[in-house]
């Protein structure tokens, strides 16, 4: 079995599809690759697969589901067993249920979030292509991130959802936040063996909620420029550019027009499955999240969830 390669897509609920598409294309800078009733499919310029973000018209914002791409089609039946052994209910999603996608398995996390695994997806390629490519294409708009990078979710039982991802799905834990007495896990960062510090992360909070969906930009300057672009477009910026000690990334947080929090995330270290898990104690959590201010900069950061 080859296993999970990366987070491959997220489907976000938005309350006004046209406004959302305008924002995700002109401010974030993704490209529309397809649409069907009540849904628009998008990808970042550096992604090869058909789409990484699906926007879905709904009467409240949030995360419909997110999905991991596995290397081989056969992996799906292997994961199907492991997920069911763990005790999660699971169903098959048939090929063609969404544009460009093959078969998938769908199940509910211990935190109530919906997750899919898939292997088959149409590949659209990138404008720079595979033969003697230029480093980036002409005509980029907005923040123009390389990819959908990760999602951070909230849930009541971070310890169990971590056990699910590491034991049933074969992800690795890069960092954890423990209560000061060491008994409870209140934060968890996990990755497929792809070098990224996280594909998915959890902090303790209400089940089924999205904290943020993050897009990857390359450098610290790109984070600053992202913030410039957000101000230019009058987007609500929650946390201005700063450093995470967790993941060592650089960050700016802001909200899409429906109130889903987004992040432009840069750098971060490279990690590997043989690296030890980094531990934070809860009393140092703000040092980990906002390394310069070392305090909760905005109360909304812990409260505004969709």
């Amino acid at each position, binding site marked *: 079995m080859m296993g999970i390669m990366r987070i491959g897509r997220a489907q976000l609920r938005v309350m006004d599809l046209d406004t959302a598409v305008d924002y995700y294309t002109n401010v974030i800078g993704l490209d529309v690759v397809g649409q069907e009733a009540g849904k628009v499919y998008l990808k970042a310029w550096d992604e090869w697969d058909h789409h990484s973000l699906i926007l879905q018209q709904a009467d409240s914002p949030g995360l419909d589901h997110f999905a991991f791409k596995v290397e081989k089609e056969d992996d799906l039946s292997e994961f199907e067993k492991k997920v069911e052994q763990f005790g999660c209910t699971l169903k098959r999603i048939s090929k063609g249920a969404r544009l460009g996608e093959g078969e998938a398995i769908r199940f509910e996390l211990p935190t109530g979030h919906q997750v899919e695994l898939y292997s088959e997806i149409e590949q659209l390629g990138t404008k720079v292509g595979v033969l003697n490519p230029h480093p980036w294409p002409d005509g980029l708009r907005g923040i123009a991130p390389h990819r959908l990078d990760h999602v951070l979710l909230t849930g009541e039982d971070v310890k169990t959802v971590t056990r699910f991802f590491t034991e049933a799905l074969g992800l690795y834990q890069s960092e954890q936040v423990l209560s000061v007495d060491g008994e409870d896990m209140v934060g968890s960062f996990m990755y497929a063996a792809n070098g990224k510090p996280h594909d998915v992360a959890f902090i303790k909070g209400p089940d089924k909620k999205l904290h943020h969906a993050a897009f990857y930009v390359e450098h610290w300057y790109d984070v600053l420029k992202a913030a410039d672009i957000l101000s230019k477009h009058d987007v*609500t910026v929650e946390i201005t550019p700063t450093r995470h000690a967790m993941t060592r990334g650089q960050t700016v947080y802001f*909200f899409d027009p429906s*109130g889903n929090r987004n992040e432009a995330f840069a750098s971060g270290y490279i990690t590997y499955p043989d690296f030890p898990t980094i531990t934070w104690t809860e009393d140092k959590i703000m040092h980990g999240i906002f390394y310069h201010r070392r305090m909760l900069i905005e109360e909304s950061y812990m409260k*505004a969830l*969709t």
Partner: protein
Amino acid sequence: MFTVQIVDGQWKDAVFACDGQESLLDAARKQGIKISFGCRGGGCGMCKVKVQAGRFERGVSSKAVLPDEERVLNYTLACKTYPRSNLCVSMEAGDT
């Protein structure tokens, strides 16, 4: 230009102006009245208040944080509330 009066809480008796084009939240904050807020997109519910008196229009707001049963009672999200008359607004009622 309409007048908005806050009837309770930290900003009890504060009065501010709102032209009905900008939201209740933006008008209040511009005039130094710090209604707490998050997304400013009608999604997170942090700026929920209750209109005790007066008329207003409501922009697109999440049904998850502002369900229909609250809408009929004139609960509303300040970031998506546009006055159409003078208003009296309860801040504490919104802290549900």
